[in-house]
């Protein structure tokens, strides 16, 4: 599955073998990427920066889902529910119990991870479609609870989450998007680096072994139960983080943000981005969340010539997302990540074919 990136690399030390990036090209791209990310908040207006922030949060959630679906082969339709667990936990702890927000967010990660393990128990006996339905069940149960349990929202139907702040410092309204950009970027970068490294450890490799063949994995000594539940816990931890960030970023938590459609959208993100790829999760989140605002900009631009586009915009936005996913399934099931690798390899040996 791993495509040779570059030939002629010989490791002469353990440190060089452990490096994530070996060639000069890779390092240069990383440098460019960091530069671009650093420049972004100064180039974009606050509207587009808010889109980028939404992408950052979604990327964290998508990495979580990819750990479960792409790396461990356990399909989950409970994403929306776990986002809700994270969001409600953090909002309740910080808003009602007065816990400092960073602690509340950390607690949300832990609580969601525990919730994930519970929801993952059926995975020990179920596979494929059956597991999909079981996780859909946990989505429905969580959605039901947050809609009906009035204590959660004090009967208002929604819950307010206090704005992000540490030790008396609060996010200021004027620099709201920019401050959040750095917070989200930090969280997403840490999350991505951690996830990337997990799959170089025994635990991470056991996830992939379970995905590739459960029986074979258990024959060579992988504890399948531990691997599956570990994957559910780790994945849900990420999702809980994304949920908690959503809560404090938007300031209001209500069930409407955590529906089945959200679960499906996240599944779309990792399919478009690339199952079993950390970078792909980020590409997928960016792609699917950029599509609607770009379409809306397009509809605005052609409003006079094609008013139909503007009139039916919300429906078109959803339909476009569906279409894109279908196209990916047909033409590049391994997603944007694979597409990128192919482009890179093509130019790497250009003008020769290999």
């Amino acid at each position, binding site marked *: 599955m791993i495509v040779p990136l570059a030939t002629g690399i010989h490791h002469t030390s353990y440190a060089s073998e452990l490096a994530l990036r070996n060639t000069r090209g890779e390092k240069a791209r990383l440098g460019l990427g960091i530069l671009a990310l650093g420049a972004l908040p100064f180039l974009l207006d606050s509207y587009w920066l808010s889109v980028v922030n939404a992408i950052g949060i979604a990327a964290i959630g998508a990495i979580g889902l990819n750990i479960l679906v792409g790396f461990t082969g356990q399909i989950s339709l409970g994403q929306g529910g776990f986002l809700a667990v994270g969001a409600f936990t953090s909002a309740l702890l910080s808003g009602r119990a007065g816990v400092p927000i960073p602690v509340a967010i950390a607690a949300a990660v832990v609580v969601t991870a525990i919730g994930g393990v519970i929801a993952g128990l059926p995975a020990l006996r179920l596979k494929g479609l059956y597991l999909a339905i079981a996780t859909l069940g946990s989505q429905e149960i969580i959605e039901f609870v947050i809609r009906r349990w009035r204590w959660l929202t004090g009967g208002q139907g929604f819950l307010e989450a206090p704005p992000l702040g540490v030790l008396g410092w609060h996010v200021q309204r004027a620099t709201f998007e920019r401050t959040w950009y750095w917070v989200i970027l930090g969280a997403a970068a840490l999350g991505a680096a951690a996830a990337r490294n997990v799959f170089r450890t025994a635990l991470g490799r056991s996830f992939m072994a379970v995905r590739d063949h459960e029986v074979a994995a258990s024959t060579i000594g992988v504890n399948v139960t531990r691997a599956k539940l570990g994957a559910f816990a780790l994945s849900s931890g990420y999702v809980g983080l994304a949920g908690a960030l959503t809560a404090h970023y938007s300031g209001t938590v209500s069930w409407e943000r955590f529906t089945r459609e959200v679960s499906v959208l996240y599944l779309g993100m990792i399919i478009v981005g690339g199952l079993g790829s950390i970078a792909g999760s980020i590409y997928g989140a960016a792609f699917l969340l950029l599509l609607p605002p770009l379409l809306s900009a397009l509809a605005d631009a052609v409003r006079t010539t094609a008013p139909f586009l503007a009139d*039916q915009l919300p429906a078109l936005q959803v339909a476009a997302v569906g279409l894109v996913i279908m196209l990916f399934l047909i033409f590049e099931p391994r997603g944007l990540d694979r597409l990128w690798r192919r482009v890179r390899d093509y130019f790497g040996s250009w003008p020769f074919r290999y």
Partner: protein
Amino acid sequence: MTRTIYLFSAVLLTISACKQSGSSSGAGSEARPAAEGKKPASDDIVLGILADLTGATADVGKPYNEGMLAYLDNLNAQGGIKGRKINALSEDYAYKIPNAEEKYKKYVQAGAVAIQGWGTGDSEALRSKVKGDELPFMSASYAEVLTDPKQSPYNFVVAPTYSDQMRIALDRIAASDPTAQVAVFHHDSPFGMAPVADGEQWIKDRGYKLGYKDYAMKGGATDHVGLLQQAKAQGAKFIVIQNVSSPAATVARDVAAQKLDMKIVCLNWCSDELFVKLAGPAAEGHWMVQPFAPPTAGKPGHESVRTYAKAKGFDLEAKGLHFVQGWYTMHVMARGLEKVAADGKPLTGPNLRTALETMDPVDTGGVIGPVRFSADSHRGATAAGIYKVEGGKMVEVATAVTPQK
């Protein structure tokens, strides 16, 4: 395994995409005035409007939005606010909170001085944001929490709150049958929940002997027979509905089909011509609590709207009362803008807020009671009309009814 995942998600996505696009009606945009999407001249006043044209509440959201844009079209044709035209950015957010947030940020970026919102969910979600950005925000959501300037300093509510409407409904029910069982059917959202707890409290405060139980109406349900069975088991004589017209009409038809002896009391968002039209004969005899007079009531305030409609060649009666509601909500906002201009102050959010709080009560010619805000209260009005459906028409039973003191 991977194959299964692909297949399964493909199927799911197709389904959800179909569901989404299926809910949008193919209604044309015949009366969409030119106010929308025009490139602003530099001194235009920018207003942001959140509209639901294709979402869960589109049946009433579309005429409301058209009414707002029509008002602005009319105003701009007459020279705008002291010669400054109003450039309205109106986009469909399909009743989805994340969409509303996205549009809101876009409007702020475009330099909007005020926002006309729509639903309870998005008004709540944006409440702390408009406070931070100091942008006056009116909505078609009349939730109680939005009327308190201490909690929501930039939200303005032009009509009696849902809770007040519920109180009026309960007063009416108690007067007609003091020991009746009341079932509250509500939209499954913050909008639906808004008056539920206050209604229960009202019964306690007033010492009514009414029974009271609430039921959430599932979105997209094709019938509500199950809920009606529960209401029947409760012994309900009255069903107060806090939902939009189409699902309420379904309830009315189910009540008729099941031959149940129950009277529906619609609050604001299902008290309209659409309910009567969709429910047909099943609508007969039901009650409505509606703060905005329907065009058929022929109040003096309807004249200006009717003149505009005639000039544009459409029928105001067909557009219905939500068109008028949008028109006059925008009228209140425009009055605030005029006041800022008259005071010679720069047009900023805080100045507009002060103007709305200190301007004279807005007379709407009987369409809705004079709308009055103050620094202590953003509750624009407390009175609503009570109507009864008779012969396929909304017949006025009482006007300017307020909750019992």
